[in-house]
């Protein structure tokens, strides 16, 4: 005990490097970029893009808690996102006045409904095999869409619900000009959502590094072994699913606040949301949390700017007929990009970089030992 073990030395050097490493500076730079977006690129399109990236990064991270850290594939994650969005829409759109109290109540309702439903689903289905869990969540997610569409009296049907945001979040709010831009309700909402997502992300980061998070990773790695150690794997998996789904619900609530409108297509659809989330987590890397940001940025930026490329192509090369034809089918280009990412980063961008770093580190340790 008197002599520090190599484990101690390793942690001490990690701690010393914590605020000096390139990773730390990179994270701070990204955060700073998002903080400055409304000032640097005040156009509606870029601010909306930045906001979508932030919200999807948090959503994908919460999905990663299930898939990457617990080894559970759920197709119902988009549904929890939608439930959160609808909860806020009910409280400050359809059934309540736009007040702060109702907004807070909406967030609490989003968390509570997500928690209860997630717990119920995991208690009922987790005892079956993993593949059945995926199928059952898919069925429930589809059922939610049908319900939201058909119960139009309750949910507004396909037309959805428009929200009225209270006080400082409302479009009419204006604090005056600062550094050349209007500090209006939209800018306030941007920062509120940015820091809410940041807080959610930090909570998730802490969750994965807690003793509970470590047990989840052990369960993902070898269920029988974890059970043989005396862990109640079923209970741990239920807790993880519930936590991930509550975060998804809260992100959905924030999403409703930003777009000011919810309908089944934009906030519940398995095809538009769930598929994006899956692609993002594959691109970014499973079991990394930070991968969500990379995946969200990649997908949202390509989806926003690839269609623009066709105009650019027409302007630059007005004669190249073949190029125009390709550019009009920009999804094709997206597919090629996606394949390239998967080929060069088989474990996702963050996962592959981390693996490379870990290999170098362990080689270094072996040399000194």
């Amino acid at each position, binding site marked *: 005990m008197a002599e520090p073990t190599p*484990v*101690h030395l390793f942690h001490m050097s990690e701690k010393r490097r914590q605020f000096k490493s390139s990773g730390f500076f990179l994270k701070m730079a990204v955060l700073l970029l998002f903080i400055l977006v409304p000032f640097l690129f005040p156009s509606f399109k870029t601010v909306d893009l930045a906001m979508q990236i932030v919200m999807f990064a948090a959503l994908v991270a919460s999905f990663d808690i299930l898939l990457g850290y617990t080894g559970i594939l759920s197709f119902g994650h988009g549904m929890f996102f939608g439930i959160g969005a609808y909860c806020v829409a009910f409280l400050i759109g359809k059934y309540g006045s736009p007040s702060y109290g109702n907004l807070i109540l909406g967030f609490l309702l989003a968390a509570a409904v997500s928690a209860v439903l997630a717990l119920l689903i995991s208690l009922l289905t987790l005892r079956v095999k993993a593949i059945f869990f995926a199928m059952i969540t898919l069925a429930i997610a589809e059922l939610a869409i049908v319900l939201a569409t058909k119960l139009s009296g309750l949910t507004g049907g396909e037309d959805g619900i428009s929200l009225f945001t209270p006080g400082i979040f409302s479009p009419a709010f204006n604090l005056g000009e600062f550094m050349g831009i209007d500090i209006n309700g939209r800018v306030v909402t941007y920062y509120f959502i940015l820091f809410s997502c940041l807080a959610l992300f930090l909570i998730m980061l802490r969750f994965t590094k807690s*003793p*509970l998070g470590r047990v989840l990773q052990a369960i993902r790695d*070898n269920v029988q072994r974890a059970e043989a*150690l005396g862990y109640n794997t079923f209970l741990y998996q239920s807790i993880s699913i519930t936590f991930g789904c509550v975060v998804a619900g809260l992100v959905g609530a924030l999403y409703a606040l930003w777009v000011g409108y919810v309908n089944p297509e934009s906030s519940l659809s398995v095809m538009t949301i769930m598929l994006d989330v899956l692609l993002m987590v594959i691109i970014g890397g499973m079991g990394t949390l930070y991968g969500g940001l990379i995946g969200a940025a990649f997908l949202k930026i390509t989806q926003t700017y690839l269609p623009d490329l066709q105009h650019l192509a027409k302007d630059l090369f007005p004669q190249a007929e073949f190029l125009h034809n390709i550019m009009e089918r920009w999804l094709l280009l997206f597919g090629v990009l996606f394949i390239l990412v998967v080929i060069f980063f088989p474990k996702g961008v963050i996962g592959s970089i981390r693996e490379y770093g*870990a290999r170098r580190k362990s080689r270094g340790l072996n040399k000194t030992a």
Partner: protein
Amino acid sequence: MSDTSAVEPVLETERLTIRFGGHVAVDHVNLRVEPFVLKSIIGPNGAGKTTLFNLMTGQYKPTEGKVFLMGEDITSLSAVKRTRLGIGRSFQLTNIFPVLTVLENVRVAIQSRERIGFNFWRNYLHFSGLEDEAYAILKRVMLDDKWAVPASDLTHGEQRKLEIAILLALKPQILFLDEPTAGMSQEEVPAVLEILQRIKDAKTQTMLLVEHKMDMIMTLSDTIAVLQDGKLIADGAPDEIHENRAVREAYLGGGARRE
């Protein structure tokens, strides 16, 4: 065998029997394991060694007879419950967490023993005592220089060592080792034997071993039990076993395995 009967045994079986159809695989076996000894069970192939193991650790339910752990009847308890009561078992197939680091494999086991798995708000590194203990256990099994690598990067022999480390971390009342050197290369065997010797010399851990490599058993064990056709035909110190006529005829004589 005479002076040990005063000590309360860690594990005891009473007329333990299991029949598979008409075949009696384990036949009225009375076995005692005293605290902090290393006892080995040997016997020719098909003698019922692993079946006896499975009866004691709870994988099989006996047709007849009882199993006692620290004087308590555990015959009706499941394997998982027996694990919680302090029966740690290694299998012939290696069972580790492949993606986790070597240190984390052991740390998660200690965390289970300490029952802090449901803590979700503190950083796991704040429980630094756990890492220190995990590292100390890795030292005991001579894996301390590999603490930072993923367990899947270890050789087969090293993975068996890690498995022993995980079991030690649970601080079981009794450690069951089913052929700990099975499938190992010749170069790896001596290291595992040394680890077992060290654990035995520390006099803090009771161990029960199934093995059919005779040389290994003779020098390592405090006592040896010999099984033949499901029956216990001898039980005593290595010298006694070596001299025992019944054993020589059944096992050592007719083409003994000296791998």
